């Protein structure tokens, strides 16, 4: 029976893997970002038209969070392209790395847009 991995053993490996979840920061909920939280609350209140209905407030919040999340995703995408020196200078391995990173970011965008669409339909 093949033995399963028990994770990194060396200190260097443990340090490296401890940062696995913090690569681009897109996995953490946008509402936990202090600078965005205040703006999300304000926007959600207006989108809910100051209603007391629970579902309306929840959907308005979903829309507000999705839009701020999309802004964060765009910034992450631009950061990837910036790191490889812009569009014109991106060749060879750097191009492949950039495309791979952008594909990963695209998954987060897909998820956010699905949520946005669902909230827009429901509100």
């Amino acid at each position, binding site marked *: 029976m093949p033995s399963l991995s028990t994770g990194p053993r060396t200190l260097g490996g443990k340090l490296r893997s401890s940062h696995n979840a913090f690569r681009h920061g897109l996995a953490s909920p946008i509402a936990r970002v202090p600078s965005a939280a205040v703006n999300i609350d304000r926007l959600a209140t207006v989108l809910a038209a100051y209603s007391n209905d629970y579902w309306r407030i929840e959907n308005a919040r979903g829309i507000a969070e999705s839009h701020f999340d999309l802004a964060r995703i765009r910034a992450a995408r631009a950061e990837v392209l910036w790191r490889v020196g812009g569009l014109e200078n*991106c*060749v060879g391995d750097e191009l492949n790395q950039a495309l791979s990173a952008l594909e990963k970011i695209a998954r987060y965008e897909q998820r956010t847009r699905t949520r946005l669409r669902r909230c827009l339909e429901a509100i």
Partner: protein
Amino acid sequence: MTDDLYTPEKIKYDFEVPDEVLPLVLAHPRLLPGETRDQFYLMLELMVGTILPDTELEWLTTIDLTWLQWEIQRYRRWKNAIIMSNRAAALETALWETHDGAAIVGATKMIRAESKMHAQEMSINPDAHRDVRAKLESHGYDADAINAGAFVHSIVPLTTIEKFLSSARHQAMMALREVGLRREFERRAREAMKRVDTDPPREANQIEEG
């Protein structure tokens, strides 16, 4: 273009952005070399002027559409840049394939090095090595053939970028449909309310009179 045409005050008052949406508009767009903030805000101004967003929801969609359009243009530029950067590689391939010494055993390395050097020089200066260019054309390698070669060299990254491009176009279509549906509903709702207001149903009148 300088980056001082669109100040936060101008954007706030000229565009008439609702306060709650303002942070999304004023958040400095993360730009790449060759892009300016003014270009972005000019595009936003055009979008706002065309769509004329009315509600906060429409404003959010307009901003999203502007960004999608901006990214579509970015992907198009990227595709062109990749093809241009692979043009030298395509030229190099064409040069060593048409080299007179290609049949000589053991000369491959030298021919490749020479082709690479010529290709780089010809990419920088189109007038360099006119004789080599003429020979290439006599073998059927004109500008279109070299471009086609560059396209073949870049097919893998181009396919991925095309995927991003079509995804952005699809998202833009979805956002437009959302705005259209909402506006259409609002128009019909307003029309219905106006009709009810000016011409109440007869049954209701009769009930009132009764």
